[in-house]
């Protein structure tokens, strides 16, 4: 760890509120509950006393790994879901915290993975930032090769939670309040030459709701040292990332390394614009859209389409000012402040969208054309649409002309990231038709969705499912299977305007998952159902399509089948009544009926046995009382006889249970187990000591 340019041993770290200080000569500084002392005489372990971090409970160890310097003073009470793989996040509590202190004494530890180092310069800047606007970074250090940061714990969660609780569409006043606070935080960060680069609702924390107090957190991207991570991380939050995040990553890694020091702090304002659009519209413009498609749209789409759902002219002006493709034309903190003061401020100008100017990523205008099927195409969208019309020619084009297409897209059109996206599709293990499908819609996300020369709308799926499930149409069956196995429906559902397909995809996947869950549950009852292959997948899809008649037919069949003995089967009852059975259950029902009927018959037999046992035991009880009274009326003691008879009845019931469950064989087994238990008990008590028995019982 470095402090003031001097390298110090990490085991001499003392963590104090707000900064990291060093301790020389073993003198320690204790400051409330935040003093962490490692090394030096004051923390030498006494013989026989384990180090607190070593003495952690098994539960804690399984909860996560905490650096020694933190483990001495804190314990993990919760592991937070961490985005990406660069770090683990834990909620910590001081080891000596009083129960009444609640969340105030808690902290969050961010423990980076091996090989990932935060940029100390950035961390120091974050520490220097106004704690009213930015999460308090209380300490940081390195331990066992892993970097860590200790931050304040914000109990109320993030703006994402607030949107979920009070949205999805937030009232204008609240959005204005959020805008004001986030803008101030960004301005503060930018004054420190810090750019966040991963601004999104999940990274804005709510300190208090009333009054609203927001702070910005998670500088993971801007503080990571290795430039190669930027691409990965930026790609993961592409929904809030500006167009330049797509276009410059590959070409200008050197500039990217110094990104936190750059002059134009406009990246975060695009992200802020996307957040505003989401809160004002009640949905993110790229909700449910695949990342690969978002990347393409960021490069080629008219960005004004992003704000089409905003009707208020003032808000529209602000959002358009923030969502400018050209970074230098994008509104910044000053413009936002002006807008907040006066939304009609005449000095605020929204620059018109520039399609063909600026760096490569803005150049959607074609520089060359590519030939396909006797015609030439000037844009990826035109080519994609043409490809969607003739599957076999497109297959051939993909097989033979892929290198030409990639060169055209990358070199002639200057759309390097789109070329990379196509290369990723080519490099994937996806089958040929899946690659062809993805190629078409990476090029033209808005083209009509077709697969193997067939329109792929929800109603087409309904017809295909009907043909496959009811008419045994082999081609329809093969198409449906390809749609599932090659994840065509999933990809189609992620295309713009394909919410219906997304619903089918989601329901189909849920049905398959439900089927697998049921299968595992039924195994516990000794019932085997087939794996969800071929016909079953087709049936599951057909039944999952909203409006499909297959589900109605399956439910009607269930009503007919689940009768008589089958209704007595307990595990079938657990799967629901025919009215409420899931699609997965309906599809597996034909395989369940025979075992369910067997189980039902068994249940019926057991019930009869139970009745017989009750009658017999009841009768015997009465007869025994009568017999005792008749045998010796003068000595008959009602209480004693009652006690004896009660014991007999209990014994009879105990005997009746194995009979009820397994008939005579059940009784025999039960008696054998009683005998074995007695022998085992005697052995343990020492009454049996011979070697044979010892070996037997020891085994």
């Amino acid at each position, binding site marked *: 760890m470095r402090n003031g340019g001097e390298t110090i041993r990490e085991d001499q770290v003392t963590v104090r509120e707000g900064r990291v200080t060093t301790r020389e000569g073993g003198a320690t500084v204790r400051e409330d509950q935040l003093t962490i002392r490692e090394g030096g005489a004051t923390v030498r372990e006494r013989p026989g006393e384990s180090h607190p971090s070593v003495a952690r409970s098994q539960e804690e160890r399984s909860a996560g790994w905490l650096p020694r310097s933190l483990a001495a003073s804190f314990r993990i009470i919760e592991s937070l879901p961490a985005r990406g793989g660069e770090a683990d996040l834990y909620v910590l509590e001081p080891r000596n915290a009083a129960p009444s202190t609640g969340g105030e004494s808690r902290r969050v530890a961010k423990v980076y993975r*091996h090989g990932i180092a935060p940029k100390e310069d950035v961390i120091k800047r974050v520490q220097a930032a106004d704690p009213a606007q930015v999460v308090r970074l209380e300490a940081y250090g390195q331990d066992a090769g892993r970097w860590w940061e200790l931050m304040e714990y914000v109990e109320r969660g993030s703006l994402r939670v607030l949107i979920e609780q009070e949205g999805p569409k937030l009232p204008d006043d609240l959005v204005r309040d959020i805008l004001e606070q986030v803008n101030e935080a960004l301005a503060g960060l930018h004054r420190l030459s810090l750019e966040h680069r991963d601004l999104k609702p999940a990274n804005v924390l709510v300190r208090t709701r009333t009054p609203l107090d927001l702070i910005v957190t998670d500088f993971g991207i801007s503080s990571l040292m290795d430039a190669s991570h930027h691409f990965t991380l930026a790609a993961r939050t592409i929904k809030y990332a500006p167009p330049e995040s797509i276009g410059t990553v590959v070409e200008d890694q050197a500039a990217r390394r110094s990104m936190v020091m750059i002059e134009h702090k406009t990246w975060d304002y695009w992200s802020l614009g996307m957040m505003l659009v989401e809160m004002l519209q009640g949905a993110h413009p790229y909700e449910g859209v695949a990342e690969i498609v978002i990347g393409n749209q960021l490069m080629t789409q008219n960005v004004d389409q992003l704000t089409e759902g905003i009707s208020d002219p003032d808000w529209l002006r602000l959002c358009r000012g923030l969502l400018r493709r050209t970074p230098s034309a994008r509104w910044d903190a000053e413009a936002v402040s002006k807008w907040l003061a006066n939304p009609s401020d005449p000095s605020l100008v929204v620059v018109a969208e520039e399609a063909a100017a600026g760096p490569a990523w803005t150049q959607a205008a074609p520089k060359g054309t590519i030939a396909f099927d006797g015609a030439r195409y000037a844009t990826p969208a035109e080519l994609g649409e043409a490809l969607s019309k003739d599957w076999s020619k497109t297959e051939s084009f993909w*097989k033979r002309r892929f*290198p030409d297409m990639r060169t055209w897209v990358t070199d002639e059109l200057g759309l390097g990231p789109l070329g990379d996206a196509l290369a990723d599709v080519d490099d994937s293990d996806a089958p040929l038709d899946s690659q062809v499908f993805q190629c078409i819609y990476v090029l033209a996300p808005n083209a009509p969705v077709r697969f193997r020369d067939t329109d792929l709308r929800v109603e087409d799926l309904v017809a295909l499912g009907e043909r496959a499930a009811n008419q045994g149409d082999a081609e329809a069956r093969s198409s449906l299977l390809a749609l599932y196995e090659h994840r065509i429906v999933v990809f189609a559902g992620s295309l713009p305007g394909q919410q219906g397909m997304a619903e089918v995809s989601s329901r189909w996947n849920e049905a398959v998952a439900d089927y697998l869950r049921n299968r595992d549950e039924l195994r516990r009852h000794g019932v085997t159902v087939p794996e969800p292959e071929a016909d079953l997948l087709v049936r599951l899809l057909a039944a999952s399509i909203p409006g499909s008649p297959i589900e109605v037919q399956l439910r009607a069949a269930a009503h007919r089948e689940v009768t008589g003995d089958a209704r007595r089967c307990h595990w079938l009852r657990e799967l629901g009544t025919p009215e409420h059975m899931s699609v997965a259950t309906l599809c597996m029902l034909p395989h369940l009926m025979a075992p369910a009927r067997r189980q039902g018959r068994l249940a019926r037999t057991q019930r009869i046995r139970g009745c017989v046992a009750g009658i017999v035991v009841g009768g015997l009880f009465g007869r025994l009382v009568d017999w005792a009274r008749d045998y010796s009326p003068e000595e008959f003691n009602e209480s004693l006889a009652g006690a004896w008879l009660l014991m007999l009845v209990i014994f009879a019931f105990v005997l009746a249970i194995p009979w009820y469950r397994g008939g005579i064989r059940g009784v025999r087994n039960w008696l054998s187990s009683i005998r074995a238990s007695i022998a085992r008990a005697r052995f343990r008590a020492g009454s049996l000591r011979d070697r044979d028995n010892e070996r037997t019982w020891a085994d």
Partner: protein
Amino acid sequence: MAQAAGEAQDNRQLMLHVTAVTHRGRVRSHNEDTIVVARWIRGDSMKEPRQSVHDIGDAALVLVADGMGGHVGGREASRRAADSMVRLMVGDTDPAEVASVLRKANSELFAVAATDPTLRGMGTTVAGIVVMSDRTVWFNVGDSRVYSVRQEYLRQLSVDDVPDGAGPGNRRVTQSLGGAYLYLEIDPHAGSVSTRSGRRFLLCSDGLTDSVPLEAIESALTRDDLGLVAELLEQALAAGAPDNVSIVLASIRSTGGAKE
């Protein structure tokens, strides 16, 4: 990061299964092609394909070189280029580094030719792959090819250095290692794809692609490695094989994968 570590762990279990053959063909009296499989260099004509298995924990180099420049020069060029590549290609690499190695091999070839008048003008094409645990770098100079073998078709990764409009049987290349009387700088083609179990790469000299149509090669892709290479050689020979034929099939499989 953890996932990446996990993948790296899995990849350490990957092995490279290579089936290779080089043949003088039906017309030539000698073989000017050279094949390299890891550190094994073979220039003599083979009667049948040879199979080997290699650990890809260390980068594994596989290439074909098609010599040009007459009996002595062609054979010498492909052998020397292969030798340079094996010597210079050490450990993990990337496309830029491979291109640099190819340039060095080109310089070395010109240097040798300059000292021996009988070898002046000798040259060779070269096409190959370097298989590493996470990625495979492909490269080529000239018209020997590297294909990625897909389920139903071949995806050509290499870029043919041939004149515009040249078709099968073309005897000219626009660049090669050596192949000129004065030193010429080269601009190698190189790229990378991910290394995954199940991936196959077909490397060949133009002796195969000039004799056997691509569709015929693709129709044999369903065969196992040995069967595929043997059939392609047989088809090339059946078509007259006017040139030397070199075929190398490199398959990446996890350790527990099916054996030939």
